[in-house]
């Protein structure tokens, strides 16, 4: 059988998920919005990180960097799954920004206020935890691959939330440092090329 350049054969990976009862188009929408949130968060965290300066801020900067780089890796981890399921990324970056699952993590009106910066960071991580919990709920026992990816990201997002909460609220800290910035220990197995 000859297959033309743009013709595709069956997508059994998608069929299995559909047969399990998942609305795959809705799932793709949620994955795209999650990926958009990771991409925009990476951008906004770059700005927030710049403003973590001074005696207190420099200590926070490294933590923001760990979260920032891992959020970009989450974007990279999600994108192949979107295409596997038959979806595609936004062709317009503005559309990506406006469709993100979470609100933009804007720099606070007083950029020298580290507490306000930490609140923005914490809220962004909390939104991400909600995003992946919802995707895990939707795919559990039905779409094993998306579930596995989302669960791995969820692990890292929950750790990010804990880091910022520990700094902001001074609660007992279980913050285990990454071996290197952007390590992404739970999502690492989905990235074959570093």
């Amino acid at each position, binding site marked *: 059988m000859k297959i033309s350049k743009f013709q595709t054969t069956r997508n059994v990976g998608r069929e299995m998920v559909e047969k399990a009862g998942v609305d795959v188009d809705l799932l793709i929408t949620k994955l795209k919005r999650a990926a958009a949130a990771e991409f925009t968060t990476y951008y906004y965290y770059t700005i927030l990180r710049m403003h973590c300066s001074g005696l207190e801020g420099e200590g926070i900067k490294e933590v923001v960097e760990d979260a920032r780089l891992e959020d970009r890796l989450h974007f990279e981890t999600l994108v192949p799954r979107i295409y596997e399921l038959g979806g595609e990324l936004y062709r317009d970056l503005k559309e990506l920004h406006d469709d993100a*699952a979470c*609100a933009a993590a804007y720099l606070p009106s007083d950029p020298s206020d580290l507490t306000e910066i930490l609140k923005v960071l914490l809220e962004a991580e909390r939104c991400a935890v*909600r*995003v992946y919990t*919802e995707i895990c709920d939707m795919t559990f026992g039905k779409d094993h691959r998306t579930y596995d990816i989302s669960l791995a990201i969820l692990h890292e997002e929950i750790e990010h939330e804990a880091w910022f909460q520990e700094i902001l609220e001074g609660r007992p800290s279980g913050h285990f440092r990454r071996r290197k910035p952007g390590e992404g220990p739970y999502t690492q197995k989905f990235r074959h090329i570093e």
Partner: protein
Amino acid sequence: MCPWFIVAKVSEIKPNSMKEFEVVGCRILLVNALGKLYAIEASCPHRGYALKFGSLSGKVLRCGFHYAEFDVEDGRVLREPVDGKGTRGLKSYPVKVESENILVLLEEQK
């Protein structure tokens, strides 16, 4: 035929909490706000995210994604989502308690 559906037991919805249920294909969020029960649609009308992940403060329900706020009593929008796109209010459904059961009228909206 009476379109009231048993959704949950009263004991399942603790004060100042909320829980999502599916009834005949409809996803309903039951809310116990200040000791009174309310039934509203389970997804935020802004972007369709689950409201069960939001937070409840008195009768104000805040979506956990773009932070729209709604009055659970009548579903009206108290605060627009932060992305500036605006949203409609929540659908809300009549609720009654019989014995230990919470019943929701799905056919008509308040």
